[in-house]
């Protein structure tokens, strides 16, 4: 069904998105926006978190207006059901990040053992630093030995033997004390997730407050555990990101080159594809087929990982994944896991695109499965790139539409190390800028796209307001890609910032919106916040910081939001989470939790109002610090 201009504009603010929504409609594709329309109205009980299907006496629903049933068959009331459901969302999010982390640890170990040809240790510096944190002395050991020992120690983190996770060593003392007092210090990574599934089984934890506290501990096991390991080990294996220029939007797909799009979250597969795409033999084959080269482009966080370390351009964020296929230019899309819509394979059948799934734990309809394992990844990657090159000739000219707009320039690669490097090696200049008021504070704008919100509107509107008010924005994930598409990630974008931030950006040659990586890389933001607090001898919650997820959709985002708040960062959500069926839980999370953690949640779908709340919060924090 063709779409009117108004319908298209209501779906996305992006120029390429608008063009390819129409192209997709002309090609007869059903996109995520169409499916969302078809799902409407969505179930109000589920929207409020009031439906439970945890056992087969149910499913049960609680009437939020008090007339119908107020208890499930087991006797659980609205508070218990909402808390259990939220707990399970956190567990699923934490499990996803942490399992991703574990896969990297496996590669680290195999690299050390010499069983992962093609992979290597790119950052010995970080290997040594992290090994030292785990109490492993580097003296006399080869990087390979150190890798094996560190991998082994990290594997232990996933189990049960720890009292507290090792990376908690980076957390400010005051914060640790709060967690200990509340009993939410995260122990083993898998332990907290497993315990959450246990607690939310019928007849286990039926105190909504203790369920929520464990939810925070579970989220912390992700933030300071699973995700932290994922980021640190990725840096060890693939290098610490440094500022790098690149480009974004569907214009990065080249008409005269072999286009391979990498989608998912884990860099293990995509890094090998990156290597294979440099292979002279495959490049020669490409030119034999009439292509001018092999062009890699990223989607979602696999894209962000490659962008951060290799400057690979981004085709788009979550809601662009289907539209990328509608260009007819994608010769191969390779996916690993997370946020890959199961609709993609079928959409690709309209084009010549080869769809490849690579993870033993993530299979999709209409995709060819080519499993990656560390032992064989290198040869597998070559095989796939060869297939993509051979597929170039099979493009269907009638279905090809190159993006009419040129790619937007951007800068990425702002790891904590890179930011401190830009500052001359210590956080002191940033602290000075905050003290002087040139930079009022910093906000992490992170998270997904969600068809319930006009694509990128939430991110871009919020971020523009923040930088105008001299608030530095750091970002990750699909939010970062939204900002890049809007042109906020070039040094020249400093002109859009308030006078103070503008001056700081100009003197350092950086954009006012710093790309810190993928969604697991939200821990880079935590790490930086902790480093600032430690440098000031205070707690994270005392700093003029905030976080926002204006267009979040995933369970991983719930876990991230919870570890942000538990770590002391005020967090504003753009889409209402399914908690409104319990007024008690809403009050706890948006008000009372402040007294326990020095931070709370807010829900604000309007990005302008969200900006106002964040600015007010930052003013309060500055005032409390006497600034």
């Amino acid at each position, binding site marked *: 069904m063709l779409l009117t201009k108004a319908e298209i504009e209501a779906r996305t603010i992006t120029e390429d998105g608008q063009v390819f929504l129409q192209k997709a409609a002309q090609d007869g594709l059903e996109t995520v926006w169409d499916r969302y329309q078809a799902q409407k109205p969505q*179930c*109000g*009980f589920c929207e*409020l978190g009031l439906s439970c299907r945890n056992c087969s006496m149910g499913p049960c629903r609680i*009437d939020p*207006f008090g*007339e*119908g049933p107020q208890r499930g068959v087991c006797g659980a009331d609205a508070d218990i059901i909402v808390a259990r459901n939220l707990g399970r969302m956190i567990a699923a999010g934490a499990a996803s990040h942490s399992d991703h982390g574990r896969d990297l640890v496996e590669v680290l170990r195999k690299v050390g053992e010499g069983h992962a040809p093609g992979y290597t240790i790119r950052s010995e510096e970080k290997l040594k630093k992290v090994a030292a944190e785990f109490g492993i002395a580097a003296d006399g050991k080869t990087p390979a030995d150190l890798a094996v020992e560190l991998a082994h120690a990290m594997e232990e983190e996933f189990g049960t033997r720890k009292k507290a996770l090792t990376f908690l060593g980076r957390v400010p003392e005051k914060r640790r004390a709060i967690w200990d007092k509340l009993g939410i210090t995260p122990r083993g990574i898998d332990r907290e997730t497993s315990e959450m599934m246990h607690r939310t089984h019928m007849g286990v934890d039926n105190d909504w407050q203790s369920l929520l506290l464990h939810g925070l501990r579970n989220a912390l096991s992700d933030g300071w555990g699973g995700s932290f390991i994922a980021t640190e080990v990725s840096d060890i294996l693939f290098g610490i990101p440094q500022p790098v220029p690149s480009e974004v939007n569907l214009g990065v797909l080249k008409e005269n080159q072999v286009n391979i799009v990498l989608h998912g979250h884990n860099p293990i597969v995509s890094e090998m594809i990156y290597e294979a795409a440099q292979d002279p033999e495959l490049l020669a084959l490409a030119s034999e087929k009439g292509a001018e080269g092999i062009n890699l482009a990223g989607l979602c966080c696999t894209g962000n990982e490659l962008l951060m370390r290799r400057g690979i351009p981004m085709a788009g964020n979550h809601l662009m994944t289907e539209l990328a296929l509608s260009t007819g230019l994608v010769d191969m899309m390779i996916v690993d896991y997370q946020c890959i819509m199961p609709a993609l394979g079928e959409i690709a059948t309209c084009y010549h695109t080869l769809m490849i799934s690579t993870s033993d734990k993530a299979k999709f309809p209409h995709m060819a499965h080519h499993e990656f394992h560390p032992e064989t990844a290198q040869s597998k990657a070559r095989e796939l790139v060869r297939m993509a090159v051979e597929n170039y000739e099979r493009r269907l000219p009638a279905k090809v539409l190159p993006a009419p707009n040129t790619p937007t320039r951007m800068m990425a690669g702002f790891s904590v190390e890179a930011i401190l490097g830009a500052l001359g090696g210590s956080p002191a200049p940033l602290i000075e800028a905050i003290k002087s008021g040139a930079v009022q504070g910093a906000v992490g704008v992170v998270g997904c796209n969600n068809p319930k919100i006009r694509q990128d509107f939430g991110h871009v509107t919020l971020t523009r307001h923040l930088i105008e008010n001299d608030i530095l924005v750091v970002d990750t994930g699909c939010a970062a890609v939204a900002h890049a598409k809007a042109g906020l990630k070039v040094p020249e974008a400093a002109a859009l910032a308030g006078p103070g931030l503008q001056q700081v950006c100009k003197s350092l040659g950086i954009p006012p919106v710093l790309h810190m990586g993928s969604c697991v890389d939200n821990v880079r933001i935590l790490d930086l916040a902790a480093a600032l607090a430690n440098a000031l001898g205070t707690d994270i919650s005392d700093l003029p910081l905030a976080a926002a997820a204006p267009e979040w959709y995933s369970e991983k985002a719930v876990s991230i939001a919870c570890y942000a708040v538990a770590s002391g960062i005020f967090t504003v959500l753009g889409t209402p989470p399914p908690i409104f069926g319990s007024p008690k839980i809403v009050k706890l999370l948006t008000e009372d939790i402040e007294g326990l953690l020095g931070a709370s949640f807010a829900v604000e779908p309007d990005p302008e109002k969200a900006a106002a709340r964040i600015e007010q919060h930052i003013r309060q924090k500055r005032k409390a610090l006497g600034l």
Partner: protein
Amino acid sequence: MDESLRERVMVRLERCVGCRSCELACRVAHSQSGTLWGAVMEEPKPRRRIFVEQAAESPAPFLCRHCEDAPCVRCCPTGALRFDETSGLVAYAVDRCIGCHACVMACPFGVVQPGRGDLFVVKCDRCEGRDRPACVEACPTRALVLETAFLVDRRRRAVGRFVEAARLDISEADLMAAGSAQSP
């Protein structure tokens, strides 16, 4: 259908899955805030005008039928309830109501509710000011439809059954017993 007449809500009982989305939507449509998240926080709580009951093994939505010769209208001593010829609906005028609840007792479907303090009587107003009532919009299985759509659908299905039965050369009854997609 005459322009001034407002189409009533019809029920395709066989499609109802008992999700109660219509009940939530009706409350939201009669709330101050007009949003689900706002409505759950309101006092007094917005009331629903549609009721999903388990009736004879099946979930069944009940709402005011807007009867042309309505028992509630007949028994109303003050004329607060009356059949409005223009809209074709049973209209309620709160300023004439004395709260005797004769209508509550008279309604054969039990869909006129006594108010609780804030209102004398609560019943379906067919969503004043809305073309498509909230419950109709909310129903995910389209169990609730407006009159015209209901009749068109019934007629088309009937023809579908004749044709399918003729094609298969079986009786309509056998076709229905076999669970045809064209079942009413």
